[in-house]
């Protein structure tokens, strides 16, 4: 009896030391989320950051020296098309292979339908968590997951969105958080929340529920370099487009060692994830998505070579530019059937008379004259009767977006391609 009493006493002391939580050896936590379909870093400028292959490398690298838990705040993709499904599958495969501990079910992922959600469950060993909807008999989703010394819950600030997509009823955010806190207290685990909500939502919850130890929120900004803390609640976000992940340490009493890890090119591609990506590209090739593209009616194109017969100086300038090799660069990288990429590397992918394939429309397999000036076949036939509009730097921003061309300076680059 003395031995039992001593053991109970010791356990009580340990609980007191660890602030009421189970003692646990320190573990590392890597937090990702809001990949939004950016499986690979995309763009025309280097160095690009992000990509799931680098993310996987990072996790495996850290696991060489420590126990690492991986948490994901959802939003695999933003759209609901076939390509989104293929992307989400590759990401789920990657996270599953990395033994992800918990994935928050986001409205974007739920909107792709119950089959898509089931697929994430299949590929990640049922790692989805969602406390924001009433249970669905056809597709059980846990409300919480135990990850080392923490209890991870998934909650949405917009539960109606998820409920509508999954054919069930929403649970108000505050009720879902209360259930998480109660379970965490019962199990002496540190409550951590994967939140489908903004920084403002996270701050509000941290103030209303001071027992929460960690809130991972969603943001369209980059991750702050310093973590925000409200009371004892740490507020973090992995940012958007999978450009960085958050790294933390936890020992059963507190989170520490907040770090934003940019996924820069020094992190080599993970071989297994590379294989998933190769599968993804093969599936894209087979899916014929380019042929299924939604196209607007348009006039006919002439091709840059035709333009060059009169506009020789402009043609020569273009022929020496990267624009003239834009589609070739995609072919080299294996993305020549990827609508996400092809639209900015050819002429008129979204137009009825625009690019189809290198074989069918060889004159349009580049960023050509008509990418900016519009279809020119009529102009080529009757140059003085049909005039094409002049183009300015505003055309650049259609493809050189902040995410695809970070740091792109239209004025500087305009000087390079300017012609009469």
């Amino acid at each position, binding site marked *: 009896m003395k031995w039992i009493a001593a053991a109970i006493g010791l356990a009580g002391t340990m609980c007191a030391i660890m602030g009421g939580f189970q003692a646990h050896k*320190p573990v590392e936590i890597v937090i990702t989320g809001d990949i939004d379909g950016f499986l690979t870093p995309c763009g025309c400028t280097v160095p690009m950051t992000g990509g799931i292959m680098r993310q996987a490398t*990072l996790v495996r*690298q*850290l696991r060489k020296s420590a126990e690492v838990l991986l948490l994901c705040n959802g939003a695999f993709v933003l759209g*609901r*098309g*076939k390509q989104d499904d293929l992307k989400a*599958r590759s990401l789920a*495969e990657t996270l*599953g*292979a990395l033994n992800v501990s918990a994935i928050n079910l986001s*409205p974007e992922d739920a909107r792709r*339908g*119950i*089959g*898509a959600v*089931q*697929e994430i*469950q*299949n*590929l990640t060993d049922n790692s989805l968590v969602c406390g924001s909807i009433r249970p669905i*008999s*056809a*597709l059980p989703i846990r409300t919480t997951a135990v990850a080392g010394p923490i209890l991870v819950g998934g909650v949405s*600030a*917009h539960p*109606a*969105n998820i409920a*509508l*997509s999954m054919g069930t009823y929403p649970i108000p955010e505050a009720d879902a958080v209360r259930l998480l806190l109660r379970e965490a207290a019962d199990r002496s685990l540190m409550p951590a929340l994967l939140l489908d909500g*903004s920084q403002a939502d996270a701050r509000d919850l941290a103030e209303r529920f001071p027992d929460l130890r960690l809130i991972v929120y969603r*943001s*369209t*900004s*980059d991750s702050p*370099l310093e973590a925000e803390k409200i009371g004892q609640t740490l507020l973090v976000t992995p940012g958007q487009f999978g450009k960085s992940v958050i790294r933390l*340490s936890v020992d059963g009493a507190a989170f*520490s*060692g907040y*770090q*934003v890890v*940019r996924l*820069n090119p*020094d*992190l080599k591609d993970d071989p*297994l994830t590379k*294989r998933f990506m190769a*599968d993804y590209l093969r599936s894209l090739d087979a899916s014929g998505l380019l042929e*299924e593209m*939604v196209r*607007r009616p348009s006039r006919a194109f002439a091709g840059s070579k035709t333009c060059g017969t009169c506009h020789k100086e402009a043609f020569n300038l273009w022929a020496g530019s990267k624009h003239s090799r834009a589609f070739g660069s995609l072919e080299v990288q294996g993305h020549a059937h990827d609508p996400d990429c092809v639209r900015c590397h050819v002429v008129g992918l979204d137009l009825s008379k625009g690019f189809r394939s290198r074989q069918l429309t060889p004159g349009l397999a580049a960023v050509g004259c008509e990418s900016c000036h519009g279809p020119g076949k009529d102009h080529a036939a009757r140059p003085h009767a049909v005039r094409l509009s002049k183009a300015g730097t505003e055309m650049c*921003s259609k493809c050189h*977006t*902040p*995410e695809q*061309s*970070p*740091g*792109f*300076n239209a004025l500087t680059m305009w000087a390079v391609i300017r012609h009469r």
Partner: protein
Amino acid sequence: MGPILPPQCRPSFQATVLSVEQALQGGDFATAAERLRLLPTASITVEWDDSNAPSAYRDLYKKSGDAAMAMYKHLFPFLSFQSAKAGQANPDIKISFEPVLAKPPGSNLPASHVGFWSEDPAAPRLDFVIGLSRGAPLKASQETDVYDDVAYCLGMYFGLADAAFESSSMDPSDLPRLTRTGVSGTETSAVRRNMQVVEYLEDAVKNHARLLAVQPSLFLDPLVINSQAVQGDQMEFNVQLSNHGDGPLAFNLFPDCGCTIVTPPGVIQPKAMRLVNIAVDTAAFITGTTKHVAVYTNDPHNPVSVITLNIKIQPRYRILVPLGDTFNIPDGGMKFPLYLIPAKGTTLDPVSATITGPLDAKVKFSPWQGFLPDPEMNEGPKARKGFKFEIDIRGDIPTGRRQATLQIFTANADFPDIAYSINAQKGIVALPDNVQMGSVGAVPKSVRFEVTRPGPPFKILGITSNSRNIEANVVPGTGPNTYTIEVSYNGKAHSGELLAAVRVKTSDPKQPVIDVSVQAIVQ
């Protein structure tokens, strides 16, 4: 007047430059020559003292340090590095190691490195100490940590101030590093300019030139900007940079996002003011975003300041579908509404609309106003104004799940067409329609899929598989509208790609079988 120092110039470097200039101004050329010796030189002696480092790590650390110096040599070919022997009287830099460094004030992490300046000719000019352990919990310093620390040390020696953002060599963070960081463009320019300043002062001392010692002083307003925008707006903000000092103020603005464009670097004369422009393209954001712009200057008291931009962003338009995104089409077909709600002040008049894809559907639209919720934006029912699109899907579509796209063409040049995906489902479907098991090994694994029809109930009469390694069964208790099927892999397939088909027999004579493919990579 002396040369203008570059932005991101370290206060200690500026103080030394000022002391040389003050001596020159007073005609004290001996003191000027003495102070000049404290400035960085292109031929650097480095003492590498790894006697405190564990023997197993010494070689790794040395290689990392050499690699950082090689990176500097590559960027600045005019530099040369010589090794100083241990105990040599006056190396320019001494790099040594200590087990754990003290925590800097206000930090809960031990310092990863610390640098001490000395004006004693018998001591190293910069005594730089690297922690052998760092982080919380403490971990042994790795190759990347030492590389980054030595790069930081060199930046410090050449007069670089700490960076505002990570991903450059002057990031002062004490956390363990996972990758090597490089010297940014701003830092490269600053090192070159600092070395030009040193050369200029050397000539001035040699020629006994009299220089006027001056210093700039920055006033920056505002440091935080809160604003609102409609998605796609090009937001422009002006920030006032004033120079209250008596020397020219050099500045360089550096945003943390490609969506932000800033005024190019410049110089503000003493007692002058300039408005600098920061433009943010909000096209990629909805709801809101926070961006930062670092302002690097040569003000010794404010080498780096950070402007924060908080922008609340309202979407340009919303598409609201009260019935959800997936429609179960009964035999007679169905009609459903979809609403296009432009933001206030945005003209987004539809010109035409069409449905593309494998659905026999028609669409017509008309102006609309009424009450609707927008759950995604957390808005309950409220008065909205826009256009109602009535989509009419005919009932004789094939069974299964189809995706089509509603295309709305508008008169707005910025949004000439808006596309929206519609999922239509008829009859019994498998969700997902092909089952991916991912990577499997030599142990059994199970995954699930649903066979569902929201309309009349149906029965599953049997399930077969064409693979000896794959078995499928109905999960008991499911049905009669939605059945869960569990697919089990027995862990016995050869490595490579596993392809199988599961055939579900149903009681519906129109759809007697549903075929579902099963795929896995066997490791």
